[in-house]
């Protein structure tokens, strides 16, 4: 299999340098792990590498984890703090991508900036209210970034995941262990404040905001309430069909697993 044709490699000595080049040359491609780029592009005129700039660390403050964009999925899978946060749903999601070899090269930045509808990583970040930190642009909630990606050209320098005490649930439905998701769901419950995110609908991950808002007004939450919430969530979100599943099956799966997830984060005493 022929190698990719890369005409020029730009090894940035700083994030500022990378940013300048990225803006100067609108055809340039920013490389994270490069695994997805290798699958989709045969030729790259100008490849910008941001290796070795310290962007591959997980920094922990009292309020948040700041995850560097060049952190490999493997680093996140094995991070003890992230393994505790919301029952470890972020490492769980990162661990269901494609096996450990790919985990060792794929980066969380690549997953997020790629904005792929099939992403298993974006869904829990959405539910955990992650914020994207850029070199120049203001920090953005991940949901906002996903909504207005077209033409957006900036360097991701960090993913801020707030450290809140709460339960988490992540579930990916796929045909085999290595397949793309038919659907994925992430739910977080922080003291009765719920976030419900559904991805691979097959559309990109979205929060069921209206259903969440209604549920979040109810204290305490009972079985009846979460059943309503699940029903409301699937009314609010759009589901489509593709080769992997029909729209109606996706909707049914979503309802079933949102309900199971809500139960788990509400009533299940057992932390994972």
């Amino acid at each position: 299999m022929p190698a990719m044709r890369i005409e020029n490699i730009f090894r940035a000595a700083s994030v500022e340098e990378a940013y300048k080049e990225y803006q100067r040359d609108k055809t340039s491609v920013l490389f994270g792990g490069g695994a997805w780029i290798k699958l989709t592009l045969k030729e790259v005129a100008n490849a910008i590498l941001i290796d070795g700039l310290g962007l591959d660390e997980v920094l922990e403050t009292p309020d948040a984890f700041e995850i560097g964009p060049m952190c490999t999925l493997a680093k996140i899978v094995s991070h003890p703090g992230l393994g505790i946060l919301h029952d470890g749903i972020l490492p769980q999601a990162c661990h269901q991508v494609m096996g450990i070899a790919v985990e060792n090269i794929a980066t969380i930045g690549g997953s997020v900036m790629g904005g792929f509808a099939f992403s298993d990583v974006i869904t829990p970040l959405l539910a955990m209210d992650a914020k994207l930190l850029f070199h120049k642009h203001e920090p953005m909630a991940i949901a906002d970034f996903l909504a207005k990606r077209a033409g957006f050209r900036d360097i991701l320098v960090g993913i801020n995941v707030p450290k809140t005490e709460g339960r988490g649930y992540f579930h990916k439905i796929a045909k085999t262990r290595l397949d793309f998701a038919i659907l994925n769901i992430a739910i977080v419950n922080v003291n009765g404040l719920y976030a419900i995110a559904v991805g691979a609908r097959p559309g990109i991950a979205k929060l069921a905001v209206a259903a969440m808002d209604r549920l979040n007004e109810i204290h305490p939450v009972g079985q009846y309430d979460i059943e309503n919430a699940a029903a409301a969530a699937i009314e609010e979100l759009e589901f489509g069909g593709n080769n992997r599943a029909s729209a109606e099956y996706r909707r049914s799966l979503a309802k079933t697993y949102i309900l199971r997830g809500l139960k788990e984060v509400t009533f299940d005493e057992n932390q994972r």
Partner: protein
Amino acid sequence: MKVVNQMLPSLDGKALMMGRPAYTDDFAAPGSLIVKVLRSPHAFARIADIDVEEARKLPGVELVLTYKDCSRIPFTRAGQGYPEPSPHDKFVLDEYVRYIGDEVAIVAAVDVQTAEKALTLIKVQYVVQKPVLDFETAVGNESILHPEPEIHEMFPIGFDPKNNIAAAYKMNVGNVDAVLAQCDVVIEQTYRTTAQSHVMMEPHAVNARFDHHNRLVLYSTTQTPVHVRRIISQALEFPLAKIRVIKPRVGGGFGGKQAIHGEIIVALVAIRTGKPVKMVYTRKEVFESTYSRHPMKIDMRLGAEKDGTLRAIDCQVLSDTGAYGEHALTVFMVTGSKVLPLYNKVEAVRFGGTVVYTNHTPAGAFRGYGAIQGNFALESAVDELCAKLKMDPVAFRKKNMMKEGESSPIFAIMGEGTEGTAMVMETCKLEHCVARGMELSDWAHNYPRRIIAKNRVRSVGMAIAMQGSGIPLIDMGSATIKLNDDGFYNLLVGATDIGQKSDTVLAQIAAEELGTTLDKVIVYSSDTDLTPFDTGAYASSTTYVSGNAVLKAATKMKETLITEAAAALETTADQVSFDGETFLAGEKRLTLKDLSNRLYYNAGQKQLMVTESYVGHKSPPPFMAGFATIEVDTETGEVDIIDYVSVVDCGTPINPKLAQGQVEGAIVQGIGMTMFEEPIVTKDGKLVTNDLLSYKIPTRLDIRKLTTEFATSYEASGPFGAKSVGEIGIDTPPAAIANAVYNAVGVRITDLPVTPEKIWKGILANRQAEVQNGKK
């Protein structure tokens, strides 16, 4: 037995684990030209014009060939005995292209980049034809895939290309319609199976060069070196004696490397340029442009008495052979011949059907070879019949299935494109297989289902299967054993080891007979210059057919050794005994080591070398019972496979652990076909699932538990009691799993694959039906 039926490590396992270069591309001559093929973007088109001038002029391009540069000799790419039961419907390159991925032009260049660039410089004007993509519309379609006047069958196989028919066949025993009319209970159902891709881990590869005799030498990932050599000679009109085909280690085949892939192309380029050449398929090319499994539509009718006596079977098949007819007839016939005899005591059985051309990737040989499709239909139909009879599916099978000592009229009628061979089942341990399978799967406790949790049901489903051991009167294998000084042997066999470890198994047979150890039998296989004939690794023939040849050769070698030892000991052969190491005649003794050195260097010198051949007079089937234990999530239809139990009668397993590996590898491929592997094609005929991202084979987390056992069985006609084991494992999963799903949730899936969405839809439909019935 000291060597046979022992769990000895394979001869090449260690070296391969250590990564020693041993596969086809590792043997490409340095500086080989790279071959790339321009492939059709259309499912069906005529090449109105093709301009390769710019491509030819590109620096580094040595050769560009179009159909105008190639001879017009039709051949078949099928890897089968000669004359082949497949139509000769292929040209090296043709004016028509018949599937997306079909060959349009051949480029040979100094490196990959140049070859790929040259492909982009070839200008083709296609006149697009209307493709035939639905095999149910092939017969009588206005689009005719094969209008060429030169194509032909080698003997009558029902070849009717004007109607898009590649082959057809029918047979009957008794009057099926009359018997069905009398039966208490009849079921009628249509089953559908899809194509399946082999996904062997090593993509197809081939390279060629001229040696110091100016002979054409090819290394190929092939299961059939002898057929490759013959077909190259025929298609390219190149003298057979000037071709040598060598098969090195091969990274899996499963039938996908049984037919010609790139060999003719590479040979042609080598002949035209005089230079060494190589071609390695991309994974996309393996998916789109090699072979797949024949999709089938099978109409089944079964009739029984209310006491459970099965009286009639009617099985009608429509099979899709894709763009070319390799293996069209024979796969389709096996759908009947290696399935229907399972219920041998019926009064009437009818089998027939048609194999049609469509503008899809050609179908070809794939483990199971029709038996998996037929088994899905028959064993599902049997369970459907049992539901109607309200009879336990195991009890029904025990009552009606083949037993040891019995036969079936089908054996005599149906052969490999010709008449068959009558045979009695000298070994058939189905009764044990079924009983033991029930124990291991805890059938009594789990059938039909157990509620595990509010939304979770555990169930079991089962199926029985048979296959064959080579093709009687057609498949020939041979073996040469050569004695060396120091008392060790070379074993030369044509039999093709493609990963199933036949080198090891055959060496075990030789070592057992010669009374020696495995390390004293050095195997060299599959080199058309040096190894004796063998049809190749298919039809589950290696252990039984090639193994018998090895046994004959070893027996002959022993006799010869005893004769020589007698001469050396100045006595007569009947006075000499031999334990593999030492010859004894009364007080006199002579070691093998000393005898061999003597024969090489000292007295009565001669090279001892024996060659023996074997052709089977029957094809004793291996049998098995497969039991699937599953859990179904009744809200989502998702299925977890808890355990798959296989109890197999393959006669003596020559190497029990390797035999278990054959069964289990096949079981997982069968589960893949049943649940995960679904080729998706667009309405223009483009294969969407043409890489491993989109086509999913089972992973080690999808199937956590397999339980495999062998029945005690000794097939006298096989080497040390062995039958075959290469294919039998793949046949039962589709029906066993479909039956388990029915037992779990009452949903009958008749179209593979069995998917959670289909199950979920079925559960909803059942609930709706219940509601309707409740209302009445």
